[in-house]
């Protein structure tokens, strides 16, 4: 059980999060939505302990996050960051195994090996196991770090998994695979909080959606309750249609196309209906020279 009790956070006197409260039960998969700068990542960094709230507190299983022992907390909470730069040529296998460093002495070698193999299989990394991290694409790197945080929590379902835009750079298949993994983890009893930009992924996979706007919690409920055209407009400033998919009974959001009049922006470019190809004088000269040679 994770309980966030009216937390606020300021950076250089600019409030980034204002009085946020919610609680999550085991087995819930919560998607955190909101426009750029709404405070999603700040909230995740507070939940991960990287930042400390100015007011309020975060309780995990009845104990304040700040009071936890580092090693015990590592077995109860894992956090996939948005950026995971790496500068040395570690192999994929080595990085996934790093997730289990914190309790090396507590868990058996067999458990470590199982966690390694199963998480790599889930994230489609089995064939990449011995590749250097420096040779992977953005989406592949993201999958390695996903496998690492999964491996960290593999032995303990009383845990919260924080995923900050896990689908970044991933291809379509792995975007869905990632959320399917998160949903399955929630079924096993884990608590999942995932920051997403794609509302339809949230509608399909999350059991609950929280929408942030300007550092405040605006809506909190099931996808059907939260994902409405009005809310889409308030939170994201887009016009959208909301349907219910007849076979799955899940909400589908279809944003309306935004149209811009090309004539009304970029005053550095002249407006003209005919495309004008201007050549620099030297190029024109060369062209003439070439033609004269041909003739």
């Amino acid at each position, binding site marked *: 059980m994770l309980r966030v009790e009216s937390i606020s956070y300021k950076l250089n006197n600019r409030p980034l999060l204002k009085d946020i409260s919610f609680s999550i039960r085991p087995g819930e998969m919560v998607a955190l939505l909101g426009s750029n700068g709404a405070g999603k990542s700040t909230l995740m960094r507070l939940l*991960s*302990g*990287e930042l400390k709230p100015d007011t309020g507190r975060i309780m995990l299983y009845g104990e304040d996050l700040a009071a936890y022992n*580092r*090693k015990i*907390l*590592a*077995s109860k*909470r*894992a*956090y996939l*960051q948005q950026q*995971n*730069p*790496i*500068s*040395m*040529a*570690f*192999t994929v296998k*080595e*990085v996934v195994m*790093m*997730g289990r*460093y*914190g*309790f*090396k002495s507590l868990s058996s070698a067999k458990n470590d090996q199982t966690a390694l193999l199963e998480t790599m299989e889930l994230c489609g990394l089995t064939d990449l196991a011995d590749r250097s991290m*420096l040779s992977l694409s953005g989406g592949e790197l993201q999958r390695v*770090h996903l496998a*690492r945080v999964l491996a*960290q929590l593999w032995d303990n379902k009383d845990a919260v998994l924080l995923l900050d835009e896990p689908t970044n750079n991933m291809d379509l298949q792995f975007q869905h695979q990632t959320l399917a993994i998160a949903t399955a983890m929630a079924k096993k009893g884990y608590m999942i909080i995932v920051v997403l930009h794609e509302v339809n992924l949230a509608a399909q996979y999350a059991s609950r959606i929280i929408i942030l706007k300007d550092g405040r919690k605006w809506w909190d409920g099931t996808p059907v309750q939260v994902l409405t055209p009005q809310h889409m407009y308030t939170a994201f400033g887009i016009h959208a249609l909301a349907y219910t998919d007849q076979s799955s009974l899940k909400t589908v959001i279809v944003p309306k196309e935004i149209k811009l009049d090309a004539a009304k922006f970029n005053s550095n470019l002249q407006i003209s209906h005919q495309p004008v190809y201007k050549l620099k004088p030297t190029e024109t000269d060369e062209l003439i020279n070439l033609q004269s040679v041909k003739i």
Partner: protein
Amino acid sequence: MKRTVIYTCLGAGLLVSICFSLALGAMRIPLKEVIDTLSHTLGFTVFGGTHHGINEGVIMMIRLPRTLMGILVGAALGISGAAIQGIFRNPLAEPSLVGISAGASLMAVLIIAFETLLFSSLGQVLGYYLLAFGAFAGAGITAMLVYNLSKVNGQANVSTMLLAGIAINAMAGALTGLVTYLADEQKLRSITFWMMGSLGGATWQNVSCLFPFVIIPVIGLPFLSRGLNLFAIGESQVELIGLNPKRIKILVVVLATMAVGASVAVSGIIGFIGLLIPHLTRLMGGVDHRFVLPVSALMGALVLTLADMVSRLVVQPIELPIGVVTALMGTPIFLYILIKDKKKLVN
């Protein structure tokens, strides 16, 4: 399996090069006599055990302390180079490049100058320890300075790190030069000693003083390998995975600068070993610090023993400063890393 082979080969290579290092030099001693003398000292006999008088004296009084110093300094520079690169998260962070060695040598020179000025003499053994601790402090202060200067958003920035290194090197080099010229004391020897390094000053006394300063980091640093591995994926991840990043950082910097500082105090700045050795180690067996740290120590010992042999042999009977030899081996590697990682390092 592959790693066992590497350990065995390096161990065997080190033993062989020790024997050659004892045999070769301005005065050539047959290998048989070298082994004889060594086994005799250790208390058993191999080839009948006759005494060889002057040759035994050369081995025991001159070449053995020098070889041992080479091994200790090489191990110290190799392992601390690898550890510092782990903390800085960058394969170019090398003690002599980023100014850590220069800080140590400046401290050492200042101590020698002030010692003769103020206390006339502190006594040999106490003096050596004072020197080693002073150089350790100098190395530690510069390491912290460069680390904090180069840190941008919790990550060491390569260009700032190297620029800070240039500045500190120039400053410490100038001050070292100034003090060596002003203090006309035989002990300071020449500026070449401090800037280029030499194992020529080896005696049993300073080797035994150097020993604890090297053996503690060589044993201690590998215990921090997993923490160093985690630093590669970001300082904030260390905490999340359940290890203490501050403790790891402080211990690594203390142990690494302890080894570098004491080495510089007895042998001056021997550059590029800390860059060359970890790089070769990673090429052979991957970047996991559980492998890189101990193997860097072993390979550092081997390579410095060989480099010392080269420095003694190429222009006999004069000796080349050993820093010249290591720089000739190390700079191409440095350039190679730069070219290979050009795109990555810019970002």
